[in-house]
């Protein structure tokens, strides 16, 4: 029976749990079995704690037997990207420098997840410190795309996307700084969502770029995504950038909001060199909306082309400072070779960080240095404001924007590792959203001729995730792309 569970959605599993067709223990055992059977190919998981997961599932079954479930996700396993800390567990950020770091505390998102009854299960792979678009910069392993094991799953949350696509876990938590949830979701044919900045607490999210980072859900359908976001979001006094006002209940809103909507198509997101199959798929999605009565409006986001330079100045500046705590003095890897304090810094960081992380620390330190600050960091902040204004202006006319998520489908291992600039362009359609602080999600909208998933990005308005989910859900209901599964 449990084989049938692999590709169920959380919404379906919830019903099966509710009518006692399955128990949470059976569900978790099925996830463990599936992972055991497939992860030597996919390599999504860094750590699994099976005993603990079964223990939590047993507790969930007990709650259910007593009629005291904590919420819709009670008993459903969720894998965790290796940069969201859990008390007593390794949180290595896929980096050698944190190879032995066991967190003494829980991230707020984890606390919220537990309070919803969901079962955090396993730590999944990522690009080192979330720096990358292919999960290839992980110190520990390279995760494969379940649709084509020769190809990358996207990144940085490649482990989250791959494990959901491979049927290993129904839900996963990732993080998105410049597209790190949406791009791998697109490349693996699943739903990935980045909330409005401030919606989900960053307390316990190991920082890459503080002003851009957000935790968000991975799932197989839009409804699941909304449920998981509802579980983890909310004001947190431990995060000073957390939003203290009301946020919508998204899962509840989906059936209530039926459109039709005004949808914007930013022409800057359909450049001449866009992969033709992606263009065709996304345009077909736009046509689908139009056919269902939505008004399609062409809009302009004139500062789009500045996104990559602005992002790589702001993100690396913040990262260079955020990552300076990994110094070999306390909980981090300390070089055996080091002799004094300065030596500990140089050698431990030299050994502990990978190439891409070092490249970004150098870039970030440079743009903040005396004499260059005004020309780079300060100017980048000004352009960031212009980018935000672009979005605000566009949203005066529309409810959401429709764009491709990634300019290309999944590429092969090693194809871009030698060329960081090409790698950086992987995020060209997602980065602006982080700079503006807006919410967006990616959902499947087709396959290439090579059988690789294509993602449609829907960009919503700040704090209107309910609308965003409803708009995405309407497309999902009208199409079957989200039901496509890779063969493993």
């Amino acid at each position, binding site marked *: 029976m449990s084989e049938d569970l692999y590709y169920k959605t959380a919404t379906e599993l919830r019903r099966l749990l509710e009518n006692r067709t399955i128990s949470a223990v059976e569900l978790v055992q099925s996830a463990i079995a599936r992972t055991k059977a497939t992860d030597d190919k996919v390599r999504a998981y860094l750590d699994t704690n099976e005993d603990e997961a079964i223990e939590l599932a047993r507790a969930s079954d007990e709650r259910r037997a007593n009629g005291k479930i904590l919420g819709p996700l009670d008993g459903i396993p969720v894998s965790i990207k290796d*940069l*969201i*800390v859990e008390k007593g567990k390794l*949180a290595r*950020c896929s980096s050698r420098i*944190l190879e032995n*770091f066991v*967190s*003494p*505390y829980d*991230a707020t998102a984890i606390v919220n997840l537990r309070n919803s009854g969901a079962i955090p299960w396993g730590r999944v792979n990522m690009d080192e410190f979330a720096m990358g678009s292919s999960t290839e910069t992980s110190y520990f392993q390279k995760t494969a795309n379940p649709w084509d094991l020769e190809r990358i799953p996207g990144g940085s949350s490649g482990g989250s996307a791959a494990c959901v696509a491979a049927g290993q876990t129904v839900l996963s938590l990732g993080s998105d700084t410049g597209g790190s949830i949406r791009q791998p979701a697109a490349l693996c044919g699943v739903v990935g969502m980045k909330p409005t900045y401030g919606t989900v607490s*960053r*307390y*316990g*999210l*190991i*920082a890459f*770029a*503080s*002003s851009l980072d957000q935790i968000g859900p991975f799932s197989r359908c839009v409804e699941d995504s909304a449920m998981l976001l509802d579980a983890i979001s909310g004001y947190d*006094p*431990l*995060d*000073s*950038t957390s939003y203290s006002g009301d946020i919508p209940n998204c899962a509840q809103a989906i059936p209530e909001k039926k459109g039709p909507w005004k949808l914007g198509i930013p022409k800057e997101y359909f450049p001449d060199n866009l992969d033709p199959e992606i263009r065709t798929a996304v345009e077909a999605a736009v046509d689908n909306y139009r056919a269902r009565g939505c008004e399609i409006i062409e809009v302009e986001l004139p500062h789009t082309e500045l996104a990559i330079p602005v992002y790589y100045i702001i993100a690396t*500046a*913040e990262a*260079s*400072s955020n990552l*300076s*705590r*990994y*110094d070999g*003095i*306390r*909980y981090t890897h300390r070089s055996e070779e080091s002799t004094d*304090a300065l030596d500990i*810094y140089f050698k431990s960081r030299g050994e502990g960080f990978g190439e891409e992380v070092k490249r970004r620390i150098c870039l970030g*330190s440079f743009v*903040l*240095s*005396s004499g260059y*600050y005004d020309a780079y*960091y300060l100017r980048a902040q000004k352009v960031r404001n212009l980018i935000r204004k672009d979005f605000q202006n566009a949203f005066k006319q529309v409810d959401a924007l429709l764009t491709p998520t990634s300019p290309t489908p999944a590429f092969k291992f090693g194809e871009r590792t030698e060329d960081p600039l090409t790698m950086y362009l992987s995020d060209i359609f997602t980065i602006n959203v982080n700079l503006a602080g807006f919410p967006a999600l990616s959902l499947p909208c087709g396959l290439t001729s090579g059988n690789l998933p294509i993602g449609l990005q829907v960009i919503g308005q700040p704090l209107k995730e309910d609308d965003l989910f409803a708009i995405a859900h309407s497309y999902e209901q009208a199409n079957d792309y989200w039901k496509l599964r890779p063969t493993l």
Partner: protein
Amino acid sequence: MEYEPVIGLEVHVQLKTNTKMFTRAPYHYGAEPNTLTDPVVLGMPGTLPVMNRKAIEMTIQAGLLLGCKIPETCKWDRKNYFYPDMPKNYQISQFDQPICDGGEVEIEMLGPSRNVMGEHRNVKLTRIHLEEDVGKLTHFDSESLVDYNRAGTPLIEIVSEPDLYSPEEAFAYLTALRNCLVAAGISECDMEKGQMRCDANVSIRPKGTTELGTKVEIKNLNTISGVRNGIAYEIQRQTLAMENNQPIVQETRRWNADEGYTTSMRSKEMAHDYRYFPDPDLMPVKVSQDWLEQLAEDLPELPFDMQRRYMRDYDLPYTITSVLCPDAKLAAYFENALAVYEKPKQIANFITNDLLRELSAAGENGSLPLDQCKVRPEHVAELVQLIDKGDISSHIAKEVFPEMFSTGKGPSQIVDEKGLKQSTDTGELEATCQEIINNNPKPVAEYKAGKEPAINALKGQVMKMTRGKANPKIVDEILRKLLA
């Protein structure tokens, strides 16, 4: 040529909050190493800072007290540099938008003598900003240990303009600043405990010119006398260099208190590039007018204002006010006593003479702190009251006070228990006086012959017989009546 020194001070003061600047971990002095930490203090991955409102309020109050402008918005910046005592390898501080702008500190120079007030002058401040403190390194032969207890403690930095012109002025400035901050309950400012630390910028210029010379920063001035001596040494060193036509290099030097000289730490070229940028984990602080007004209500009187008031309203001498007013706790003690019985001079005398003497004698390491003193302010007032009522003489009061100090009993209780009350029973006293007159014919005869001072011999006899309890004024009256 004669040279004039120009000095600016950067004073770090630890705020007296219960918890740290960006987390609820507690702080107090002298705890076991690394016991006052939490994941935020240790800069664990994923942790975030949350502002301590009390620390911001104390900083605003310091600013209001010193006449600073409080801008509507201030913000947090990261100061990036690597050092093992700093868990995140950046310090959250304020770069270009501090909590307080400008302001000034009133200082008093030494007067011509101990009894005469010296000249007063206002020293200009540049700014006051708030930041987090770092931990503490202890070095051993082959290893170093870090204690993060102090890390993350709220610290304000008070930066003066180059507006001090001698080591004595620097000393007076530090003293005045400390008195103000202690009075407001903002800090204990104990330099021995590192609650107040000072760096000095020193330059010299030909006397009469206005342009500033090349400045040298002096670090490690850990005591008030260190500040005076370190600056004095540096002025001497720079003057000598000028006189010998040697250049003065812009650099940071360390004061070596044991040897009495400064040595170079790093030159301008080796100075850190702190790569300041706004901390993305914290929002700017908005200071509303309402909040400012509320905080202003809670401010104490400045020590020098208090001193002027005491001299004017209570007619207290400078010497006494200069003991009472700089010590906020002592001044409060005085005022509490005054609230019970309004005899400022007598009360102030008991406090500055008897009380301070007893405290000094009782302390093992310096004076016993006032808050450990058993004598309550109302007891001092009561004691003065007993004298005024004629219940005891001031001579007896001087004996009662040490008893109050050692036992904590009120003066009336001691007087009762020891039977020290002056006799007011004139019948009994008359009998005693008559007896003395009968037994001392010689002074009686002398007095009656018009030799006035002879009565003093009789009075002395009466006092001796009553063991000092008789009121001398009443004894005088009775004797004169009986001899009339």
